[in-house]
């Protein structure tokens, strides 16, 4: 407890400086496309590329990241992913995949 409260002011100021710096460098890549996208007319292939980006990005975000759900046992994240895959195959609302995989991981953690 005292570790936190005894931190001096300069340290506090530098944490706020870090937060503001992070906020700026995080917002820039997010907002830049607002000004780029209308500057020039997109060639057709760029349009097709942009339309494919969501699928490519989803793939890259899912794997191998899902294996780090439990960094010591990659199989646990894998099991959660398979359960999500099976549930979402039935074209139900995404929420069921989310809840089903959480449940599967909770159960898997009891056994592994």
């Amino acid at each position, binding site marked *: 407890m005292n570790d936190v409260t005894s931190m001096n002011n300069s340290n506090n100021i530098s944490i706020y400086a870090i937060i503001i710096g992070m906020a700026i460098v995080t917002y820039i890549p997010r907002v830049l496309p607002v000004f780029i996208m209308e500057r020039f007319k997109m060639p057709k292939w760029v349009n097709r590329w942009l339309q494919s980006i*969501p699928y490519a*990005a989803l793939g*890259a975000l*899912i794997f191998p990241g899902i294996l780090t759900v439990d960094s010591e046992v990659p199989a646990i994240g894998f099991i959660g992913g398979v359960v999500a895959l099976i549930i979402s195959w039935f074209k139900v609302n995404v929420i069921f995949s989310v809840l089903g995989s959480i449940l599967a991981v909770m159960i898997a953690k009891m056994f592994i």
Partner: protein
Amino acid sequence: MFLITEKKNYTTGVMKGIKAAIPIAIGYFPIAIAFGVISVQSGISLIQATSMSLMVFAGASQFMAAGMIGSGAGAGEIILATFILNLRHFIMSMTVMHRFRNLSKKSTAALAFGVTDETFAVLSMKEENSDLQEEKLFAASLILTSYASWVIGTIIGGIFVDVIPQSISASMSVGLYAMFIGLLVPAVRESWKTGIIAVSGMALCWIFSRFMDTGWAIILATILAGLIGVGKNERCD
């Protein structure tokens, strides 16, 4: 008559946005709680952790920053690492802004703040709506609901540091991956070419992540796997 139509658009757009954000909000909540807990444990105050969630709104980089602050890393180092990790949002925001190209720049600049992996995933997989007002309200309410979950979770985690069992939030971190899968699978069922692009993204990201940081691996894998889509549907356009 006019008023009634506008009002209908207003509520349907907002309600659809909130509904679409529920999986994100459920996924964010335990992760945000974990972030609050870890921040306070690394010597970041509750107000500072909350400010970070309010101003940065990018989960992975916030965890990294909390860890780096805890281990005494310098400000420049932390900010640079944040930039690299969050650069992937540039690619994602390009897709989102392409969809919203007909909205005013003021609106899109505001919406841009809320482009995360998850909001991007839901926004980009949704069918385009020709009703601009509804499209804008949908996006805004989706982002605000997700944002609220992220910020409130951080506060709760920071307050109840000692009471929250780590195991629960650990199990729930699979939720966001499940959401990505849940968004991807229906698209793959409709067009197997989508599946090829996604699996290429996975394979490339896996290969790249052995040689570089996660942020770069995701960026490169997304750009390259997306290029596979350039060749497809040549005739259908």
